[in-house]
């Protein structure tokens, strides 16, 4: 087999991307373009946008823990107007689809924002961040409730025909129920998942290590939990899954694809190495050549057949 036989393109709910590697919202943006050719990745996913400008949480906003980090950024945002006037046009210079991540405080706000964002011809798909643990009380999020998940997705579905990606929270007892609620609501793809609600304490000052007391754990430490959740969601849903959480290299991405993901998002790894997504794409290609796979689809959920 020659190199040209490998096709990395996938469809994630109506949006075709040239390869399954894309950034995770909040861990990507202007600043990385000096280290990574954005035209190489499957899609661009800027940080979640809120309706109004908001400041985010108090410092310190991040700390390192074993095999990961906890962040309590709290979605610092310039608001939707600036997003539409600056962020969206900025990404037009790249030849890859723009996925807009939306974070809202109520179902109505999700609707309003989706309408504004989907109205932009330059936005290829919407990602509903119903999983940010920082904004809601005590780390709770929309995505922790089946009915609200259904309601948010259902309402946004009435507004747009653009692909709707729903980013689930891993902080639930049964992710299958939430995934099915999102599917019933009309989601085109499920992002599994976001950060795990976590806490770390400095034993010398005896204070929490992040200003907001609790935050979201990301990085290699969470990967096994996310792989499990991808597998579980795959068991009940046929929607394309985008795996997200703890991917550090191509092997991790392949592991998530074998568990059932069609594509993956990369967050914390880009902080360690801002050009890491390029290495991941090359690594996946090399793996497919080594084991003679022609398409990503031959790998998606393959581990199910091996059990």
């Amino acid at each position: 087999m020659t190199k040209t036989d490998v096709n990395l393109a996938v469809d994630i709910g109506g949006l075709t991307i040239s390869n399954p590697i894309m950034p995770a919202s909040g861990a990507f943006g202007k600043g990385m373009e000096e280290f990574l050719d954005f035209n190489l990745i499957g899609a661009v996913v800027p940080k979640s946008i809120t309706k109004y400008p908001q400041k985010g949480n108090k410092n310190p906003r991040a700390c390192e823990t074993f095999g990961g980090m906890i962040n309590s950024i709290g979605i610092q945002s310039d608001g939707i107007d600036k997003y539409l006037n600056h962020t969206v046009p900025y990404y037009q210079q790249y030849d890859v689809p723009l996925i807009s991540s939306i974070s809202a405080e109520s179902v109505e706000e999700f609707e309003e924002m989706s309408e504004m964002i989907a109205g932009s011809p330059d936005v290829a798909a919407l990602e509903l961040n119903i999983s940010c643990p920082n904004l809601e009380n005590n780390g709770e999020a929309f995505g922790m409730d089946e009915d609200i998940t259904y309601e948010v997705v259902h309402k946004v579905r009435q507004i747009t025909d653009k692909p709707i990606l729903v980013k689930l929270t891993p902080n639930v007892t049964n992710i299958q129920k939430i995934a099915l609620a999102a599917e019933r609501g009309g989601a085109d793809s499920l992002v599994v998942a976001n950060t795990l609600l976590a806490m770390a304490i400095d034993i010398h000052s005896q204070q929490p290590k992040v200003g907001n007391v609790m935050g979201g754990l990301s990085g290699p430490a969470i990967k096994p939990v996310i792989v499990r959740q991808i597998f579980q969601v795959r068991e009940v849903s046929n929607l394309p899954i985008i795996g997200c959480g703890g991917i550090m290299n191509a092997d991790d991405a392949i592991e998530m694809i074998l568990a059932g993901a069609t594509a993956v998002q990369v967050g914390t790894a880009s902080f360690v190495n801002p050009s890491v997504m390029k290495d991941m794409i090359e690594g996946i290609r090399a793996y497919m050549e080594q084991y003679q796979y022609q398409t990503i689809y031959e790998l998606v959920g393959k581990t199910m057949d091996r059990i």
Partner: protein
Amino acid sequence: MKATSNLKVLSNKQLSRRYWHMAMDSSSIDEKIEPGQFFNIQSADNGSYTPLLRRPFSTFRINENSLEFLYKVEGPGTAKLSEYTPGDYINLLGPQGVPFSIKEGTDKILLLGRGVGIATLAALAQKAFNQGIQVYAVLSARSHDDLLAAEALKDYCTEVVHVTEEEQTSGVDNVREIMNNLITFYQIDAAYTCGSRRLSVLLQNIIKERNIDGEVALEEYMACGVGVCYSCVCDVVRNNTVYSVKSCEEGPVFPIDEVVFA
């Protein structure tokens, strides 16, 4: 396109109980490196995730073909850094950030540093000295042992004053008096600080009263170091409006009168 660089360790020596000095071969870095800029250093071996994130360090000395860092062993990142020996390679991302500025016509500058902040100011002292500017410094530390690392500054400074907690000379009132005396006596044009919130607030007040220029290098917690994560933000006031800005991108050096010290 920028890339991270693997630099060869030339030396890595312990200077005092907690302070270390490292030199690396920087001949492969084409970009000009300026005092106040930082490198985001990966202390773990590639593929090992402990510690996971890079750690920011400002350059202590910038030479033709080498870079020097002065660092205090704090936790896992700096502990790992202290284990490297000459010949090893370390991955660096940088130079990043906005450097210190020296206005045209400046003759005399004053530095106010504490702890590892002294390392950040050292590169500025080196540059100013090379430009024929006279450098004065007030250096603060917990103990004399911690000041050992500041010896290098002597090469570039006309006068260095040490204050320590050990000798009960590092209180704000005493430092204020020393600073004011130096500013008056030597007719200082600009002052720079790094390493302590308390001293930054003091300098902010002094520069307002004395009507001289001042800059501060902030040390906010950084996760990405490239302006995408928003973990390093600080508040600045510009035209009477407060803005939250990323200190890895718009800093770490700021005009001191802009910064809102929380």
